[in-house]
């Protein structure tokens, strides 16, 4: 059974909008079920590598119901398959479950998403900034963070 059929039968409520594009599978996952689905994909479907975990800020996109989407880029070595799962996260409730316990690779990737987008991961062992310094105000990759804004640690503040 193909992975998309497996997912849509086992998680008919949680995983939606599965579609194939360029040999890659894309789909949405309910953010409350993200850990469950990820653990299933890893343990039972062979998606053993979390290649990437990132976020996109869809501020002002009319067709997007929620502001943020977390993108999980999973790769299965055995089947040579790739799946991109996306979880919608709203601005008011910018919290999602951490998948650090499923793939330790998520540890730093989730720290980066927290650093750049300000999304909290519940269950993360040490959610602190990774690329920016702790004193940094705001989250730089959000679309409403101005590109020319400066926050120098030393010297005159503007």
């Amino acid at each position: 059974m193909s992975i998309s059929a497996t997912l849509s039968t086992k998680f008919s409520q949680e995983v939606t909008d599965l579609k194939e594009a360029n040999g890659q599978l894309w789909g949405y996952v309910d953010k409350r079920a993200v850990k469950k689905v990820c653990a299933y994909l890893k343990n039972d479907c062979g998606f053993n590598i979390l290649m990437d975990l990132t976020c996109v800020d869809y501020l002002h996109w009319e067709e997007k119901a929620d502001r943020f989407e977390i993108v999980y880029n999973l790769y299965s070595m055995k089947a040579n398959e790739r799946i991109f799962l996306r979880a919608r996260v709203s601005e008011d409730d910018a919290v999602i479950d951490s998948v650090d316990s499923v793939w330790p690779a998520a540890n730093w990737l989730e720290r980066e998403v927290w650093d750049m987008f300000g999304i909290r991961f519940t269950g993360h062992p040490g959610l602190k900034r990774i690329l920016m310094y702790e004193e940094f105000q705001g989250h730089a990759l959000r679309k409403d963070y101005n590109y020319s804004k400066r926050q120098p640690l030393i010297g005159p503040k503007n």
Partner: protein
Amino acid sequence: MGKPLPADYNTTETRSMLLNIGPSHPAMHGVIRIIAELDGETVTNIDTEIGYLHRAFEKSCEQGQYNVALPYSDRLNYVSPLISNVGYCLSVERLLGIDTTDRCKYIRVIMCEISRITDHLTCVGASSMELGAFTVFLYMIKAREWFWELVESVTGARLTISYARVGGLKADLPADFAEKTLHAIAETRKVLKEVEGLLNSNRIFYDRMKDTGVISKEDALSYGITGPFLRSTGVDLDVRRYAPSLVYDRLNFDIPVGEHGDNLDRYYVRMEEMQQSMRIIEQALRDIPAGEVTVDLAGQSVKAYQMVDDAKMGLTRGMKQVAVVADPTLEGSSGAQHANVYSANKLVALPKKEDTYGNIEGLMNHFKLVMHGHGIRPVKGEAYVPVEGANGELGFFVVSDGTDKPYRVRVRPPCFAIMSALHKCLVGDQVADIIPTFGSVNMIAGELDR
């Protein structure tokens, strides 16, 4: 004789020591801070701090047009910038749904493999130097120099190359490229042989590399490690094999794997990968389709400035028929071979400079592609194309909102995953093992911190 110790004196009290290495340390290449907790000479814990070279790459990419982000991608992995260039272009091309010419694909493969060789030469050379083998460093940098001269002859720069374009390449290969490359390969094979003679059975090198920085196959996979680092543990995962882009599926090459996942195996894997890359370059140079020179300029050409002056005076009769010889700085290295390496799709590819400066259609085409609010406009959507970087899977996740600027560019930096697993390699080893292990990670701060 000193005073006897009091009876309740605890002579066995031990405390661990914190050793701070970096962000700038002579034995570390790249700015990174490692805080090691030591019990005597043994490392009991490692905390890695990154971000010292953060330059807001992803934010900067969102500010300009699609081709504007290209020069930034040079600065990701500055030891093999061509691979990041090509990787970014492949993702945007997937977004646009276009394909490039065969010759362009072959050139991209050749340039990527040259970059992989320079990257591995730097990595092996620098980490040998840190173990005291300075000769090896000099030999390898000598070999790298031959390849960088090749890169310079093709792209015009050694490091900040910006060679690829969405839909093609800036220019075709220079005339004597194949000959020079084959010569560089032959010389490099000799250098690698010399290096193997110096290192492989060198007691100091072998003892410091063998069984240090060990990572298990399971740990490497769960931390998302790819590239030579993963292959040293025995997993033959290579993007060029499992998701071949460009023309990798037409070329023969082996994927070297190690067994133990230690520093020595990573050294062996990198040495063999260079040989395989040279094999790929030789095949690609053999199979590359000859470019057709599309226009014959002989006999009816006019200098660009002359044409502009004539046009100012209204002398435009017959002007559309003549070809313009643009100034070499404008023309690039191969205006005549433009069609060999660049897409014919006018919505994506810049016209050749002779057209831009020589006729109104070319000028308008150029204008439509470079002015704000015009430019390349992929439909709304997203694309991710992985390529095999020198450190592992390198992928650009590009989101388009239908305008001429990328909405989001996310790069998956291969050494990010390796650095997040550094404690797995180092805990239990000695302090001195930090240096060869960190060397074999081949951390490139440019792509790690972006």
